[in-house]
């Protein structure tokens, strides 16, 4: 599991163990970095160990874990009413080759936060965002913050820009690389163009929390981040909370806005000695009552449509998942390296797109 900062998972596990007699479920907290947690599970799976019966699982791990044969098929266990309530894109993100491997719990999608006291109408296009950001930024306050460090977050940011220009990365079913396009070059060029003009030069070292802290301290007009920021800012209240608006990601003239889907759910290890008991817990913890408790204490948004706050529902419903291919981690690393090289000025946008395309193509051709 993720580090249990709020203690909500501990409480839920205790609640389950006292209300469901049987082998007790034990909570194991992993590191904060999600790819380190991914490796933690991989290590256990590679040894075919049953150290973890239940895997708190990011959507982008599913294809790899399922293709490796490490996850139990949950297709038959999912209840019909749950299937109808859960966001279709979240269910899809838990599937591999037509089988369900992950029960969705929480959903995430990139959103654009803006300062309602500085911005009248949220921007819809890239040009509008740049124009408003330039007009509202001052010496103390940058225009636009996003996550530019070389890590998975950069891929989620880039995909929103790429999709916003009408381009695409990889087609999961045909395993074709679609990156080599004018749109991709435009997307890289646009992101690069924000650095030093509307985004601080250090944006290429930022992850989510660095951008949130800066935004929350009034040091930016726009922020690209996930829904949890809304909860955190509103919990603190005050002037800042009254002046925050949420909008979908911007796009090019004549294109659509698309968010990158994130999201967490529960999978069951194929090496588990008691998959029925594991499922009992997964089913318990993904009931609305339990999800609500996590929502209140952690700020996470449940993947059940009935529980999603109105302002986020349209953004989440139009969110897109990242390619569901077993080699996702590698494809993402290739993209991250080339993007990061382009953003720090070591290669041009064209070279980055060409290079990433070539390497991804080599990766997927077999």
């Amino acid at each position, binding site marked *: 599991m993720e580090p249990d900062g709020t203690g909500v998972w501990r409480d839920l596990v205790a609640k389950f163990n006292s209300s469901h007699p049987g082998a007790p479920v034990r909570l194991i907290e992993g590191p904060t970095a999600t*790819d380190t947690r*991914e*490796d933690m599970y*991989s*290590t256990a799976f*590679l040894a075919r160990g049953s150290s973890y019966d239940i895997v708190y699982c990011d959507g982008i791990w599913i294809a*790899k874990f399922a*293709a*490796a*044969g490490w996850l139990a098929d949950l297709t038959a266990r999912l209840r019909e009413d749950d299937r109808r309530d859960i966001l279709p894109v979240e269910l899809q993100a838990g599937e591999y080759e037509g089988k369900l491997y992950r029960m969705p719990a929480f959903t995430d999608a990139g959103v654009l936060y803006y300062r309602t006291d500085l911005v009248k109408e949220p921007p819809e296009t890239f040009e509008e965002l740049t124009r408003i950001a330039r007009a509202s930024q001052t010496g103390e306050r940058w225009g636009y913050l996003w996550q530019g*460090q*070389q*890590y998975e977050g950069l891929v989620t940011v880039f995909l929103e820009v790429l999709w916003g220009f009408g381009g695409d990365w990889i087609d999961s079913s045909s395993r074709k690389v679609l990156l080599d396009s004018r749109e991709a070059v435009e997307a890289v060029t646009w992101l690069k163009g924000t650095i030093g003009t509307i985004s601080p*030069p*250090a944006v*290429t*070292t930022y992850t989510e929390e*660095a951008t949130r802290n*800066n935004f929350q301290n009034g040091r930016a007009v726009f922020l690209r981040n996930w829904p949890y920021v809304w909860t955190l800012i509103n919990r603190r209240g005050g002037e800042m909370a009254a002046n925050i608006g949420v909008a979908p990601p911007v796009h090019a003239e004549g294109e659509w806005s698309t968010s990158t889907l994130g999201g967490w759910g529960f999978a069951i290890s194929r090496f588990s000695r008691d998959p029925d008991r594991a499922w009992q817990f997964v089913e318990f913890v993904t009931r609305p009552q339990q999800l609500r408790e996590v929502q209140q204490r952690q700020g996470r948004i449940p993947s059940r449509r009935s529980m999603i706050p109105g302002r986020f529902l349209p953004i989440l419903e139009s969110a897109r998942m990242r390619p569901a291919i*077993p*080699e996702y*981690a*590698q494809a993402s*690393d290739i993209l*991250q*390296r*080339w*993007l*990061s*090289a*382009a*953003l*720090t000025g*070591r*290669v041009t946008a064209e070279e980055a797109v060409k290079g990433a395309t070539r390497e991804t193509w080599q990766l997927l051709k*077999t």
Partner: protein
Amino acid sequence: MATAQDVKPVAQVRTSGEMGSHQWGLFGLPAAILLLLVVAYPIVRTVALSFSDMGLSNEFQMEWTGLGNFRRLFSDSRFASGLKATTVFTITSVTLEFVIGLGLALAASEFVRGRGLIRSIFLAPWTLPTAIIAVLWSWIFNDQYGIVNGLLQKAHLLESPIAWLGTPGTAMGVLVLADVWKTTPFVFVVLLAGLQSVPQDLYEAIEMDGGGMWPKFRYVTLPFLLPFLFIALIFRLIQAFAVFDLVYVMTGGGPGGATETVSVYSYRTYMRYLDIGYGSAQVVAMILILCIVAIAMYQLLVKRHERTF
């Protein structure tokens, strides 16, 4: 705490260790079994894996591919850039560590009293876990909250904060700095032990012959120091060449893969891409390179000087 007197018995242990071969066999058995289990098996297995295809693409079946993985290494630009980053890191950090470490050791050997205290104080960074040191240094060089940018801005040397870990050159510089800070004490302690093993009467002999600082260093200190230099150098080269934790925590290999070392790449290939055969081949290639470097160092430092002195 080891003192100058403790150093000499090491040589005695070695001589008293020459016992009959039948005794060796008996007493060596448990150690041999242990070594076979924890050292030989993993090495043999890694080498075997490096000649085969095993991973996500073939459901973890071990399939013999001969030199396939090694051929792939030669055309892999990411491996080449990893090798380059590793070499730059190793050469700069080890050079700095030896220059500073030798200087400190020469200075500290002049103290007769308080040497133990100096040694303990200098050794402190070496005792900390690297991952923690990596977090520490990445905060020191954080562009927003880091003390380096804060001080430079206070002193009006900087107008806007520098993203130290965000540009290739400075990121590598910070990595080297953190490594030098952590491991110079190791070099220092080893070389100090070497200096303390030099018999003082030899210096007196040179003085009587009218020799100054340089002849003393060249004809007395250096010959006695050489085996220590060699040991410290080999240790440091192996560790620096295999650097993982520092890079993984501080930069993750970024920006743009500029600081990704071979270890970080092979870890990712093996653990994240689940390309076990190819990941093993990278490790084997690294071991081969290290063996060559170690042998070259031995020839250069020890063999050649054994003849000269």
